[in-house]
């Protein structure tokens, strides 16, 4: 079964077309990088995937559940890390996670156990009682990832999660999410405009001006070229 299946998705803001006939499938447990320059349509795609907008044309299916016909089941399968920080800065990591657990209907001992588990997964157990304001950028991102995993989603959507982080932290978070896909079988869609976050073995989708220009295994797509140069060549002329 596919983790995420998108078929013939189009979306426009009035006259301005943001996505044009986008179709792709991601097998379960695969790390897929969605590479695109700013303005390529990545954020619109994420807004559609998380049902902040509803689809105008086309369909989205999450672990077999249609987002249009069964939105609650489909959303329940999704964990999401937005570009903006969603944690309350004045609450501790634990308090933040409890709040988000409750939004997923998890409380009491079940929430406690799940929070301990996800914090361990992102190596943040010892930070549970620190306020988010005291954490550095990397730890805040890890806490966001822990938060997105609380309800045990089968699909994890991350929208440029490494923005504003130093190279070491970026590498560490990228490695960690790759590991989540490999060892926990989570389907990951990782949006970025940074080619160095993509491995040769990753499933790669290049989005430009609302259209898919490449869809395949990264190594096969870039061939002998360096991915960053290939990406620039494929998307040159973009804003």
């Amino acid at each position: 079964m596919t983790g995420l299946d998108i078929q013939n998705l189009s979306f426009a803001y009035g006259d301005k077309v943001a996505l044009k006939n986008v179709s792709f499938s991601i097998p379960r447990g695969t790390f897929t990088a969605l590479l695109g320059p700013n303005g390529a349509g990545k954020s619109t795609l994420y807004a559609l995937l998380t049902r902040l907008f509803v689809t105008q044309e086309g369909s989205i299916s999450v672990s077999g559940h249609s987002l249009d016909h069964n939105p609650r089941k489909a959303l329940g399968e999704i964990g999401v890390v937005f570009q903006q920080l969603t944690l309350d800065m004045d609450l501790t990591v634990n308090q933040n996670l409890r709040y988000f657990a409750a939004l997923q209907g998890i409380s009491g001992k079940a929430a406690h156990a799940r929070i301990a588990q996800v914090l361990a997964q992102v190596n943040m157990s010892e930070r549970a009682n620190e306020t988010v304001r005291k954490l550095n950028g990397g730890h805040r991102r890890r806490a966001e990832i822990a938060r997105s995993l609380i309800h045990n989603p089968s699909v994890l959507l991350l929208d440029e999660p490494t923005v504003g982080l130093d190279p070491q932290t970026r590498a560490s978070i990228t490695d960690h999410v790759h590991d989540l896909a490999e060892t926990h079988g989570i389907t990951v869609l990782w949006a970025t405009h940074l080619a160095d976050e993509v491995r040769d073995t990753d499933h790669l989708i290049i989005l430009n001006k609302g259209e898919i220009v490449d869809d395949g295994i990264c190594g096969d797509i870039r061939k002998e070229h360096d991915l960053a140069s290939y990406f620039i060549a494929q998307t040159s002329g973009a804003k």
Partner: protein
Amino acid sequence: MIYFIALNAIIKREAFRFVQQRERFVAALVRPLIWLLVFAAGFRAALGLSIAPPYETYITYEVYIVPGLCGMIMLFNGMQSSLSLVYDREMGSMRLLLTSPLPRWWLLTCKLLASTSISILQVYCFLAIAACFGTVFPVWGYISILPALIVVGLMLGALGLALSSLIRKLENFAGVMNFVIFPMFFLSSALYPLWKMAESSLVLYWICAVNPFTYGVEFIRFSLYLQPNAGAAAISISASAVFMIGAIWGYDPARGMMKSKS
């Protein structure tokens, strides 16, 4: 069950944020207290109020404006909650709230109930301070206004929610102040009885008479004296329903509340 877990978490979070923002708490109390202790003191000599229901005897101006000031607290709080929603939305946590698998109408209802609880807390703090300064009401009145406070809190909170779905940027809140809060407050029976307004201008009287805030204030006023006012209650409840439908419409993903950002 899941519904109530989320409701509990959202109310707790709102309460925690409110307690943290002490200046907001103080400002919420100082504003009506200035009206009560300064403005009302100045006007009591100038304004003579004849006896009209629910009052059975001559009352001072301070006593008259307290229900209006309770409404004012709820009006400001409802709008401030909408401000926090715009802020939340910019910061991403509103997006997260809306991606919860719970139905959107329930999530918005939770937000509304949370902001109403905070409003009610503020009103009771204000009434306690007013009592310390000698403006007291029948003891049972303090309990019997609770249903009215819930309805008015929901009405103004729902209005704030509906507006927040339309506000694009934080700065636009100044516009809400000028075009929603002030007209709603001044064109109502909060500071002067409507018959007084009719003496000055019939047009203004009619504007006051169609302002749902007027009915909210009157619902509170009559409840404070344990007197029924079915008309005010019915209009307040109907306005709450209309504003809530507006909020649910505003946050409908088919309309795409985030579309306005682009």
